[in-house]
């Protein structure tokens, strides 16, 4: 293998930023706080600047939008990460506004529809109003919830202390059950004059139903015809957990659809801001619980960026091996479960589980747990894979899995019933897919060959020879086929990684439960099996992150759900949702 001569690189995002400054003199400034990067845009010019960034500079994929509460400075900040689908680093731009209610920022949804759910999330959790947003309702908390829980001055019901470790644990550790620390003690506050006894709740669903296309009665051929409102979920076998979709139907056809989520919301990000840096690692396992190996990687990538440390060489390979094995088992399960959604009950799903079990055996031997792996540490991984298990990985990758993927292919790909249920259903054009911030297989099935492993390589992915899987029809059949393609590409990467893996230590740092992270911000993102998994972290140099945000692919990939379902049959909704590949642990966070 020859290494190419180093090319002098110009950061294209810096060039784009300069253009932005020239175009909007006085309204755009570079963010010069130590450890920060990007551009600060004044709120008045945001809409214009966003249109310029999208249309002229070509940053067509708005990956992440997130809020930060700078309580002490009296500021609220909205941070945008935009990318070009042709590849390259992010253009980071921010809006800073005074922290006085009502906090308002113009919405960028007219330019990037993908900001829809994310702006709703920021409104919900931070109380920043987005002017011009078509449907600004709460998304994770329920309508009627008091306060905005991610604000730094908001405290949860069992609030004990601002940050961990809690002082009551040592040296005089008295155990108290959480429920005995009453929820009605210090943490409940009512507005002046509010009497809970006399409170009459308003219908929390009113705004939701109002957001659907209006219920109407039409007379067709002399017969009065009604639209029907159907609630799919939250308890419904098709929704893969506690997810709910409110569907307006015209006969069997979907007229409009609104996803309702947050039933599994535990405010992962608030917990993350109480935890120390290292303590967040096992919590990331609980996001997308099928792929804890990938989740760990995204988080350690972001924190390692901030710390400015190198990852041990062998650990880099182990990370790739684990992440790609994780992708293979994820796609196996996805296809198996998609078949369940289509009515082919459990034969394909159990074939898929067979392979998954073998892969989980490897995770268990390496990390100690099948699903909650907690395998990564800053600077490497927690421990090496035992020799005999390395052989087992070889056996799987070289002997077993290639044949099993082919077998799945034979079992399903040409099956006429299967094809007729999937082909041409739920088409998402490339323009729509990019604009709604689809990532991962959803985007690539629509003909955009955008894979972070290639477009903005992290870890050691630049060393491997693999193709970015891409399909062009954007229908459900392609969303199935792309998963099969991706499994084959993952095997290619695995084969190379297993051949190249060097001996050596698996962590570049000394093991310690204390992590020193310099002040600043970082965004680490990886190509998780479900799409782009990003972590935005802000450090103030303290032992706990000041801001910890997860850009969850399951969550944002649902932005296009209504688009794909409208005019399809209600039965196809089940499969369309299945093909998005959501996991509620990550969706609701």
């Amino acid at each position, binding site marked *: 293998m020859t290494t190419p001569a180093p090319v002098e690189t110009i950061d294209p995002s810096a060039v784009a930023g300069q253009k932005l400054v020239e175009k909007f003199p006085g309204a755009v400034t570079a963010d010069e706080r130590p450890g920060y990067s990007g551009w600060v845009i004044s709120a008045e010019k945001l809409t214009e600047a966003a249109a310029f960034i999208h249309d002229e500079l070509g940053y067509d994929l708005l990956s992440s939008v997130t809020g930060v509460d700078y309580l002490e400075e009296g500021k609220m900040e909205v941070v945008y990460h935009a990318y070009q689908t042709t590849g390259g680093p992010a253009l980071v731009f921010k809006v800073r506004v005074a922290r006085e209610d009502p906090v308002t920022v113009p919405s960028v949804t007219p330019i990037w529809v993908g900001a829809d759910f994310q702006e709703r999330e920021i409104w919900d959790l931070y109380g920043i109003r987005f002017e011009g947003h078509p449907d600004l309702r709460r998304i994770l908390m329920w309508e009627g919830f008091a306060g905005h829980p991610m604000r730094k001055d908001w405290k949860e019901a069992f609030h004990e202390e601002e940050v961990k470790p809690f002082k009551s644990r040592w040296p005089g550790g008295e*155990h108290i059950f959480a429920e005995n620390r009453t929820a009605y003690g210090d943490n409940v506050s009512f507005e002046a004059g509010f009497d809970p006894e006399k409170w009459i709740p308003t219908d929390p669903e009113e705004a939701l139903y109002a957001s659907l296309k209006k219920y109407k009665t039409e007379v067709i051929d002399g017969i009065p015809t009604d639209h029907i409102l159907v609630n799919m979920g939250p308890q419904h076998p098709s929704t893969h957990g506690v997810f709910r979709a409110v569907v307006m139907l015209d006969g069997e056809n979907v007229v409009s659809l609104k996803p309702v989520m947050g039933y599994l919301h535990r405010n992962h990000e608030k917990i993350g801001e109480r935890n120390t840096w290292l303590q967040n690692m096992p919590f990331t396992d609980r996001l997308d619980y099928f792929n804890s190996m990938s989740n760990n990687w995204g988080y350690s990538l972001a924190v390692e960026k901030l710390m400015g440390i190198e990852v041990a060489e062998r650990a880099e390979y182990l990370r790739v091996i684990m992440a790609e094995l994780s992708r293979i088992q994820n796609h196996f399960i996805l296809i198996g479960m998609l078949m369940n959604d289509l009515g082919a009950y459990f034969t394909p799903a159990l074939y898929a589980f067979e392979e998954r*079990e073998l892969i989980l055996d490897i995770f268990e*031997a390496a990390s*100690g747990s099948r699903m909650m792996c907690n395998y990564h540490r800053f600077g490497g991984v927690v421990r090496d894979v035992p020799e005999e298990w390395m052989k087992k990985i070889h056996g799987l990758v070289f002997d077993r899995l290639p044949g099993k993927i082919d077998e799945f292919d034979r079992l399903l*790909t040409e099956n006429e019933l*299967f094809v007729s249920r999937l082909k041409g259903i739920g088409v998402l054009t490339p323009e729509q897919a990019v604009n709604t911030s689809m990532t991962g297989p959803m985007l690539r099935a629509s003909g955009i060959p955008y894979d972070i492993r290639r477009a903005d390589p992290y870890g050691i992915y630049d060393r491997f020879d693999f193709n970015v899987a891409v399909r062009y029809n954007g229908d459900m059949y392609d969303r199935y086929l792309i998963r099969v393609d991706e499994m084959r590409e993952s095997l290619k990467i695995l084969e190379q990684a297993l051949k190249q893996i060097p001996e050596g230590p698996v962590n570049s740092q000394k093991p310690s*439960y204390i992590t020193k992270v310099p002040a600043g911000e970082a965004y680490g993102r990886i190509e998780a099996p479900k799409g782009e998994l990003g972590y935005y972290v802000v450090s103030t140099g303290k032992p706990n992150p000041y801001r910890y945000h997860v850009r969850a692919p399951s969550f944002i990939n649902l932005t296009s759900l209504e688009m794909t379902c409208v005019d399809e049959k209600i039965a196809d909704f089940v499969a369309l949702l299945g093909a998005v590949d959501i996991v509620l642990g990550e969706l609701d966070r």
Partner: protein
Amino acid sequence: METYGKGILKGLMVTAKHFLDSYLEDIKWWGRKRYFSPEGIAHRGSKDAKGIFTVQYPEEKVPVPEEFRYIPFLVYDEGENGEKDIRCTSCGICAKACPPQCIWIVRGSDPETGKPITQPAEFYIDADICMNCGFCSEYCPFDAIKMDHDYEIASYGRNLLDINNLLKSSKYYAEIRPLNNALEEAARAEKAAAKAAKAAASG
């Protein structure tokens, strides 16, 4: 598409093969125990596994790998007269590293002088909160707290473990994690030898 149904037939061949394999595998294993034997269970979890794949829990159990982690326990060394020499020094590192903060330690004190001593007076782990991440055992400098292999802890009540429930002997630890224990013992012996050499040199 020439013949409608060709794809379905192709798929059915796969299911037929799986169906036949479940019998053929049993015939291949004729005379050897495919079920209720360690080799049989190991084979069903290997890359060559075919046919019936499931394990009949609880009659059959898949052995857990050495690194498998479940609720932590405290290690004690057995003294000459059978007394329990607890390794824990109540330094509090595990309680500080614990992500869900499920460890409570009361530091012991000398009954006469009242000064803190290197022994825990109380040690609680709320196993209902524990997330089995393994940080406590990973960062313990005294090899005093370790993750268990016993995953069958279902009970009718809450699992609040106090020091009496938590203590397990170092023999048990050596049994469940032989490789780790050997490494740790070697490291401790080395440390002790270095200390002795230093003491000898200084006087």
